């Protein structure tokens, strides 16, 4: 055990302060310390993306970041993307287009997709497949995930246009 550090992070808009060993992995901080269990653990070597969260505007695999590194940063997880009365268009689209089966990869998948659409609101199928290649799904074969993201993009763009 090493000396505990003072950590300050903002998760889904809420400031969190606590003492933690620096080796505590961010994914465990979220899941076990803060009970934010949407992000999951799949591979632990940064290949599967089940633990994907957004940190200061970047899609990050939370299994490969120490909480000490994250101190001072703002983190968004699937729980921060929408709520039951106000779902993110991706959350509705994944249901509508059967973009999930066991659901284990889904929080990371949707969190990553939200960032992808932020950076590229009109992605081609190829861009979606390339932009989502850091997230592994064992159930769907991706075809309906691509469809879900395309549908969400269309909906978000239509909403954007309507607003303008």
């Amino acid at each position, binding site marked *: *055990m090493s000396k505990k550090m003072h950590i300050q992070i903002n998760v889904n808009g809420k400031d969190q302060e606590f003492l933690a*060993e620096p*080796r*505590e992995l961010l994914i465990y901080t979220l*899941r*076990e310390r803060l*009970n*934010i*269990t*949407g*992000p*999951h*653990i*799949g*591979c*632990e*070597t940064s*290949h*599967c993306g*089940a633990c994907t969260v957004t940190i200061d505007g970047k899609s990050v695999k939370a299994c490969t970041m120490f909480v000490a590194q994250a101190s001072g940063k703002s983190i968004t*997880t*699937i*729980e921060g993307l*929408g*709520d*039951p009365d106000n*779902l993110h268009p*991706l*959350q*509705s689209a*994944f*249901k*509508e287009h*059967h973009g*999930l*089966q*066991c*659901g*284990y*990869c*889904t*929080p990371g998948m*949707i969190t990553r997709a939200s960032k992808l659409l932020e950076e590229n609101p009109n992605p081609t199928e190829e861009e*979606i*497949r*390339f932009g*989502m*290649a*850091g*997230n*592994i*799904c*064992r*159930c*769907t*074969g*991706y*075809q*309906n*995930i691509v469809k879900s993201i395309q549908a969400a993009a269309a909906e978000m763009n239509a909403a954007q246009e309507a607003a303008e």
Partner: protein
Amino acid sequence: MKDELDNREERVANLKGMGCSRKRVEDARFTQGKGNYVDDIKLDGMLFGDFVRSPYAHARIKSINTEAALQVPGVLAVLTAADLAPLGLHWMPTLAGDKQMVLADGKVLFQGQEVAFVVAEDRYAAADGIEAVEVEYEELPVIVNPFESLKSDVVLREDLDPKAPGAHGPRKHHNHIFTWEAGDKETTQEVISNAEVVAEESMYYHRTHPCPLETCGCVASMDKVNGKLTLWGTFQAPHAIRTVVSLISGIEEHNIRVISPDIGGGFGNKVGAYPGYVCSVVASIVTGKPVKWIEDRMDNLMTTAFARDYHMTGKISATKEGKITGLHCQVVADHGGFDACADPTKFPAGFMNICTGSYDIPTAYLEVDGVYTNKAPGGVSYRCSFRVTEAVYFIERMIEVLAIKLNMDAAELRRINFIKKEQFPYKAALGWEYDSGDYHTAWDKALKTVDYEGLRKEQAERVEAFKRGETRKIMGIGLSFFTEIVGAGPVKNCDILGLGMFDSCEIRIHPTGSAIARLGTISQGQGHATTFAQILASEIGLPADSITIEEGDTDTAPYGLGTYGSRSTPVAGAATAMAGRKIRAKAQMIAAYLLEVHDNDVEFDVDRFVVKGAPERFKTMKEIAFAAYNQAIPGLEPGLEAVSYYDPPNMTYPFGAYVCVMDIDVDTGVPEIRRFYALDDCGTRINPMIIEGQVHGGLTEALAVALGQEIAYDDMGNVKTGTLMDFFLPTAWEVPNYETDFTVTPSPHHPIGAKGVGESPHVGGVPCFSNAVQDAFRPFGNTHTNMPHDHWRIWRTANELGLHS
């Protein structure tokens, strides 16, 4: 009249019953991060357990020193075999009639084997404790090849009497487990030796792993006050786990509650019982606190539940015209250090005897020898019914090899040998009775859709262009026609640990016309909560949206054997329909009473019972439900509940026709899937959207297995593919779009005619992808090359065929 018709359609639509693409009820929680997987469970005072694992594949354990580990802050206990032995828990029975060490008892038999269990206050202390356990090993000779194992003087299983028979009969050698036969050996050999044409091939179906995205794990909580043990875990068969835990721990079954929460994919990985479960239970009993154990990915790939590892040698005989006359299949099965295959008791090689496939083969013989090696135990059915992927791969390769020998088109060879529609129910040479099929229709539809003749023409042109030096890419057309055997199964011949493989459904209709149904199965992503409600909606006339489906809690759900081998729809789906029909039968009596007519004078119509010939006189199911609770009906008990335990009369036999078009760069060995067409016939279709999703997923797992996914060992028994860098799980970038299609040939013996679909695409997909690779090289002289077809192995084939010179 038209209004009435519209109204009826509307009523049907309102039910969201069978046949509609109902959106999944599971998705709300999963898309919002509110699933409840086992690692999400957090209990007061919960401890963490994790294993010290053997770095060696075969070694004697000289000593285990836990002193330093117990000094690590936060470490509470370190369990070894010596601690478990007084409880008789240092070994546990396997599903295959063998036994397996829970913690290393004197020696280890595979790399990663569980040696000691460290229990600590958190994950970090447990990890530090593992580092501090000192184990002294004496390395022993390692055997990773089953053929060598059968010749070796080295005794792997010193605990077994080499002369005594095993669970499946006599053993030929100290490293031999069983011989299992099906069919007529002598006749088959005679037919083959007298045949006009015989094709022979040896093939290795490599070892791989189901690798669901969520690894295995559990939380055991022994409540010493009430004497109750609760065990949450990644169990594909929670009820069977409860029985096993009771049998090995001595805790009475009513004092054990097993809960499978949401499961992050199973694919066969979560059928078996693992040492982690046993150690967690013991640790919870010892400490009086809840204990969590969660595998990491390396543990998962190295220790729990490999699949395949079949060395198969085949002979297939035919007339000169291509009519198949006989099939001979000999298998050497590598089971690793313990025989922990998850098969029905009487089937140590699963349903490998479905290896005559979709063809009318009059004579056949199968022999399987199981062998111990220094590899991990398992032998689960990875997204297939028991060993059916191996069987289908074998026959679909043998057909291709025979076509080459006959110089005949492989599509035509299949066509002339298919079991004909009028032959069903068809009794196969190796014992199974196929329930229904219409293979010719499916095959013709598939070939026509992909313009098979056009593809062959294009391929021939490509071969010429390649020979002229105009291209370095060759083209393969992969064909596969598969018949699965799923829905284990009839209790008379299928059991696991003596538990008959029936399944169950219990329904309670609430007074206001909604319902809860509980089943003995457990979804791992298949969407049971959505589809079983659809079955019930059609059967009992209440909207699917008003029906809650619950599975996985042994305290509330009726006993069932779980979800694997595509058995949920064929068995539990049937139980659901049958329980629904019991509800309907009682509802009919209630309706007749309310309508003041004889029971036989009312008939069911979508969501109501109507008086025959007077459609304006009816009672809706909602009204009937309320009446069941508020009317005193003479001769009827109050309430509206039913339970059904369904023992299927036969398996179901889904089938399908797949075509893959692939381009291969001969210089780099890189394959590119240009097109994939999948026609599936799973009988009655409950939810087309979910079926299509299952097909996409199964095909993607097939792609992975065919094109690179393997558990590889070096000569020292070290696992070379322990992380997702090396163990191939394709990303969205590597996966094509699939074209799906279907025909419908209902199962005649299933209450709703459904056959199951989750595994078909994997079973049929693997040979299709493999055949595409092999077919690309066929014009250059290739007959067979083993999977996985990763870049270097494809390159090697090209190289050996002289395509690089």
